[in-house]
């Protein structure tokens, strides 16, 4: 218990976003809290990095004398912690309604879910996706490829402790490919549709226009969601018109 007082600490404040009050990380501090600064302590983590999450009760908190050292285990170092920090500031999440629905489907029917639990899982989801993606991306780079494919993802899952998903996902992928074969030539499966609904409250539109299949009836083996035209074996059966 005592070790929680030492080590790496984080200071957060509560920020109001459109949907909820979300904590935002402000800085990493290495020393104990300053006695003269008002903190409202919410969390403490007993993990190897002793994270302390604090809220500042007033909107503009003072910059106190807590220097951010380049201590050994600082998450301001140029390691994964730094990346996480940058990522969190973007705050890209999946819609909470979708997340909550899936959670509900996972628990017994009579179960309820607290609101802050839903919000936290929403954040966990983004973290999970990033976690898998970076691992898959690394493998991809090692093999000098530019496009992350299904195998990279499955491999990442397996490496990161989610190997129990690999078989169900392979099965799912197989069924999907078969379904796509069956729908060959049938219009309507455009991945460009529905974009409008997803982007209403986002400003991350810059990446999307490129790589979307236009509904011009062309049947090509085009990679969806990429900006470059590539033909990858194994995906050629999947066609969208």
């Amino acid at each position, binding site marked *: 218990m005592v070790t929680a*007082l030492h080590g790496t600490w984080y200071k957060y404040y509560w920020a109001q976003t459109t949907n909820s009050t979300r904590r935002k990380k402000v800085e990493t501090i290495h020393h104990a809290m300053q006695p003269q600064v008002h903190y409202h*302590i919410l969390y403490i983590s007993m993990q190897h990095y002793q994270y302390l999450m604090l809220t500042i009760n007033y909107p503009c908190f003072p910059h106190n004398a807590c220097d951010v050292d380049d201590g050994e285990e600082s998450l301001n170092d140029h390691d994964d912690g730094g990346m996480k920090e940058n990522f969190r500031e973007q705050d890209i999440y999946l819609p909470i309604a979708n997340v909550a629905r899936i959670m509900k489907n996972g628990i017994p029917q009579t179960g309820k879910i607290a609101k802050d639990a839903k919000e936290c899982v929403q954040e966990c989801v983004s973290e999970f*996706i990033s976690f898998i993606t970076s691992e898959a991306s690394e493998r991809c780079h090692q093999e000098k490829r530019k496009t992350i494919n299904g195998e990279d993802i499955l491999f990442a899952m397996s490496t990161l402790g989610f190997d129990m998903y690999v078989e169900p996902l392979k099965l799912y992928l197989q069924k999907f490919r078969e379904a796509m074969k069956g729908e060959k030539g049938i219009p309507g499966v455009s991945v460009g549709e529905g974009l409008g609904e997803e982007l209403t409250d986002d400003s*991350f539109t810059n990446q999307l226009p490129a790589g979307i299949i236009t509904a011009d009836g062309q049947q090509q083996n085009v990679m969806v969601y990429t900006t470059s035209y590539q033909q990858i074996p194994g995906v050629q059966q999947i066609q969208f018109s």
Partner: protein
Amino acid sequence: MSGDNVNHASNSKGISLPMTRVKMIMKSSPDVSSINQEALLITTKATELFVQYLALSSFNNGSGKDNKTLLYSDLANTVEGTETFQFLTDILPKKIFARDYLKLIEENPIEEADN
């Protein structure tokens, strides 16, 4: 004409998460240039499985058994106790009441770390 839209809830693809948003998150990882369609699909499906797994583990693990509500603390406890979820530790740290924490530092004066 959006009956089979891959972005809709519980569609014929069996996916209830918006793939465009999943893709955004994937692309926000550094050094990711492009993602093929299968990778996106698998990731989205895996995310669903992940959510269910996290929710159910936490529900079973915690006070949900009694009052049937999945709480933040259930999630935090599960993350702490499950190796697979260790990557979530800084998102789901455990809570401590302020008064307990203050008592703690009172009893254990804080040592200054080396500068």
